[in-house]
């Protein structure tokens, strides 16, 4: 690439509007925190009202949150919140549900096998692959170190 092109790239970098970082971080914090607070609230209800033990609560809360994430995706609402929240809706487990359910809905037209099933993990797949592998690696390391 010659110099004049680099000049152009610098020009574009300088003149393109930037994301509003502080605003985005604040919204992500508020919405992400809000989702986690809802999760905590649900956990408290399970524990204190329904009398579930700690282990069961740890399983029941993520199941409930994933269900809610999927439900709101299906109602065409989750991405509207995500537009403002950014990482605030992406990071909690509800974001994972959205990443699985949204391609499942979108690619239903290509059939249940090659559409829904095959495309369901196009976004979430990498998270599973590297997440599980990282978990195995850390687990092995922990075992070898005697924890």
């Amino acid at each position, binding site marked *: 690439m010659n110099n004049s092109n680099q000049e152009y790239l610098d020009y574009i970098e300088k*003149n393109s509007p930037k994301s509003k970082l502080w605003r985005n971080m604040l919204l992500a914090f508020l919405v992400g925190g809000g989702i986690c607070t809802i999760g905590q609230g649900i956990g408290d209800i399970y524990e204190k009202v329904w009398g579930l033990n700690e282990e069961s609560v740890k399983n029941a809360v993520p199941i409930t949150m994933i269900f809610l994430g999927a439900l709101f*995706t299906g109602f065409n609402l989750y*991405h509207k919140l*995500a537009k403002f929240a950014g990482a605030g809706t*992406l990071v909690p487990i509800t974001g994972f549900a959205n990443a699985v359910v949204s391609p499942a809905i979108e*690619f239903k037209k290509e059939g249940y096998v090659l559409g829904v099933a095959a495309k369901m993990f196009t976004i979430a797949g990498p998270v599973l692959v590297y997440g599980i592998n990282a978990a195995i690696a850390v687990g092995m390391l922990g075992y070898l170190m005697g924890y």
Partner: protein
Amino acid sequence: MQKRLGAQTVRFQSPVSFLATASVAGQKEAQGPLSKYFDVIMENAEWGEETWEKTESKMQKHALMRAVEKSGIDVKDINYLFAGDLLNQCISSTFGLMDFGIPFMGVYGACSTMAETIGLSAMAIDGGFANISAAVTSSHFCTAERQYRNPLEYGGQRTPTAQWTVTGSGAAILSGTGQGPFVTHFTSGRIVDFGVSDANNMGAAMAPAAADTLSAHFRETGRNPDFYDLILSGDLGMVGKAALIDLMYEKGYMISKNYDDCGCMIFDIEKQDVHAGGSGCGCLASTFCGYVMDMIKMGEIKNILIMGTGALLSQTSSLQGETIPSVAHVVAISTERNRL
């Protein structure tokens, strides 16, 4: 007189006239500033079809049907159909236009397709190979999103430089006999790549290609920007529009006075939340075949230049880290035909 003026520009000798144009637009576009100039407005994004792709095909079909209706010709009189779109293998065009039974020339020029197909139609007519030719293209927000980006319901954020794919279609019917407006020149673009790789900043990627073709047009025709009442690019958006003005200034052309971009006109950028503006084949197609042609007919503008700008990337090239090659095609239109 020579038809070829230079490396990129041809000047048409016979009068290549628009017989009629028609535009189709979606709801979001109909809520924008150009609302009243669209011929057909879709009642919703699906428009009664099962898949987004079928909807887009229907848009092309209706754009051409309406243009044929307005022109008063018979479909059988059209010798060639030059058409294309953004979807893989241009399926909107093939599925939407097959029932017409017109010899079909599939064209892929990304968002430059409207200008390219008008130029090719004009060449076929001036070359004596066609009496009547049609140019059609379209884009649909939902088909483009699912092919190039993420599922509609996926919760992601768009960057400020990202553009919104216009749900729109346009069809133009050109003829060797007609009362104008006339296509007078066609400057076809070279592939230009300045190294922009951000697929969310297409305007920036396409502006150098636009500057390349536009300056070639002025150089080879000996005209300057002031000759035109309106210079209109397809979908450079806010970032690309500003970049083109600056790039042209560096080349010694002041275009800011009479220049605008369809991507900045079709939506109310502040109110409609489209970030850097509109994009897609349908952006220039529906703006030109609607608003611009109406302005010409009303006598508001006489000499205009339309420029389709296309980013020639694919999902594969993008994932493999390639930069974005672009192309721009320029068509000069006038209410008066070229004099021999």
